[in-house]
């Protein structure tokens, strides 16, 4: 291990200290000689007491030893190269950064970094091959019961869990690339896994090939912004019991089962894209027992089911676009007081499907490409209401196998008959003011 101190940094520190000392009254009488003498003493102090020193590790050296020898506020700088290490425990506020992405190979043994201190920064490092266990959730980088930590611009490759935060708050996970080539859900962990955390920022990360891309359980007041989560084996984003969180500008694409949101209140999902989630149990967005949520300006494109809601209460679904989905939305009978307003429904096989003849949800001012009414008073809204639930979608809900009759003459006959004399379709599931043209301003 090479340990050295960087001159420029210590110089800046000295200047800071000088200003502090020069403020003292007895200082003005000192001569130039004393000034130099004092500066020399200060440098010695910095090194000996370990104030903000830089510790360099280069290939062949031990990162673990460097971390142990560091003191609070120090910077451990890892030079380019490859290192085989695991079980590095960081229990003091230091910064660990890499130059040109040094690679740390965990060799399948436990965790690479375990952080147990506030204000730790880990930046610019490539972490590969952390351990796998069926009993313990090993992660390449775990933060336990800490606050103010920053995980930035790292590359994580082929790990069980990627970044794992437990019992932590006010941490930032920014611009990391987390890639695994897991083949089954069973042997893979989650890319970014948060458990019992508060006020966390997850921003600008790319996650692919994990079990769930981003997983939240008991996480509050957190923001998930500008991430891209794709080709994960189960869910692109999955959260449970996580209230007051915001999800904005993310892309969830081609994940095994899409995105799942469960048992959560006061969540905002804005400007996200839910795309290409195909399969019998795949949903663009699956909502299960959610209340008081806002789902706005999202794009649901090419999913088996765009939006599935079971037990959703007081959910506002506004200004979204649903295009080319099998089912744009499935809103089950136990959803109450939801508002579906100002959305575009374009090129979906079914626009709205439900399993009940009762409905307490409001559908209003949406654009339905299947609407063929007219607008005589030219106010932009059709003069005859639109019923988005087709008779056939109710039949399919009861007997999925009947789907093979889709686009057959008998099905069209069925739909027309139900339109003339509605019996099965919920009476109140109706858009009284369907828009005549596509709404702009949706993503």
């Amino acid at each position: 291990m090479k340990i050295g101190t960087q001159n420029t940094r210590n110089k800046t520190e000295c200047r800071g200290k000088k200003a502090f000392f020069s403020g003292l009254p007895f200082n003005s009488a000192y001569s130039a000689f004393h000034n130099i003498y004092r500066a020399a003493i200060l440098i010695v102090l910095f090194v000996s007491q370990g104030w903000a020193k830089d510790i360099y590790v280069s290939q062949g050296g031990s990162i673990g030893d460097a971390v142990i020898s560091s003191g609070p506020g120090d910077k451990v700088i890892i030079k380019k190269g490859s290192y085989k290490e695991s079980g590095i425990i960081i229990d003091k506020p230091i910064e660990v950064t890499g130059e040109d992405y040094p690679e740390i190979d965990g060799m399948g043994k436990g965790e690479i970094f375990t952080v147990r201190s506030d204000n730790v920064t880990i930046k610019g490092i490539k972490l590969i091959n952390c351990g796998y266990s069926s009993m313990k959730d090993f992660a390449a980088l775990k933060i336990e019961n800490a606050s103010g930590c920053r995980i930035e611009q790292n590359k994580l490759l082929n790990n069980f869990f990627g970044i794992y935060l437990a019992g932590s708050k006010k941490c930032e996970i920014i611009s990391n690339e987390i890639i695994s080539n897991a083949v089954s859900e069973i042997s893979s962990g989650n890319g970014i896994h948060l458990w019992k955390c508060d006020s966390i920022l997850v921003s600008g990360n790319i996650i692919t090939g994990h079990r769930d891309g981003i997983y939240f359980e008991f996480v509050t007041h957190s923001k998930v912004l500008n991430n891209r989560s794709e080709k994960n084996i189960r869910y692109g984003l999955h959260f449970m019991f996580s209230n007051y969180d915001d999800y904005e500008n993310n892309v969830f694409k081609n994940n095994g089962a899409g995105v799942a949101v469960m048992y959560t209140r006061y969540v905002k999902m804005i400007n996200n894209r839910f795309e290409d989630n195909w399969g019998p149990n795949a949903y663009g967005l699956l909502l299960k027992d959610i209340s008081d949520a806002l789902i706005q300006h999202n794009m649901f494109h090419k999913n088996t089911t765009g939006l599935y809601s079971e037990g959703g209460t007081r959910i506002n679904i506004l200004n979204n676009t649903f295009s080319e989905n099998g089912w744009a939305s499935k809103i089950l009978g136990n959803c109450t007081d939801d508002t579906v307003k100002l959305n575009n429904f374009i090129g979906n096989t079914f626009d709205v499907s439900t399993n009940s003849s009762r409905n307490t949800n409001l559908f209003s001012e949406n654009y339905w490409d299947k609407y063929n009414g007219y607008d005589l008073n030219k106010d932009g809204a059709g003069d005859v209401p639109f019923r988005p639930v087709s008779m056939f979608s109710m039949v399919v809900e009861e007997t999925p196998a009947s789907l093979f009759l889709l686009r057959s003459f008998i099905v069209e006959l069925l739909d027309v008959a139900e339109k003339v004399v509605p019996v099965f379709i919920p009476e109140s599931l109706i858009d009284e003011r369907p828009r005549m043209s596509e709404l702009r301003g949706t993503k």
Partner: protein
Amino acid sequence: MFSALLITAFSCSSDPEPINFGNEQCELCKMTISDIKFGAEVVTKKGKVHKFDAAECMMNSLSQGKIKTEDAGGYYVIDAANPKNLIDAVKAAYLISEKFPSPMGAGLSAFANKTDAEAVQKNFGGELKSWDEILLKFKVNQ
């Protein structure tokens, strides 16, 4: 698959059916069943199989009356110490430990042998429970 259905329908046994991890959905929470240490199953007297990703989902299903206890022919849970293996839930030993998280947040795990449960408890903490205590905790009407 059809013949398999027929066999199940006619056999009327309450034997467990293995869980196809990664492909089957939990009946209650709709999640894909994927954590091989957890999972549960109720087989009714008529042979219908209800699968869950966690024992707490089975318990909640029972307490919410989605499955009636009088219809149940057998209860099964995954042995956390022997992943993917379904065992008799009534005879299993249970651990509730926050540090050993289960898929639906209850921290509930099941074990065929009490010694395994105690070993995990030693590592992760928590409380050991019996089937009857678990039923009580989840307010399942017997």
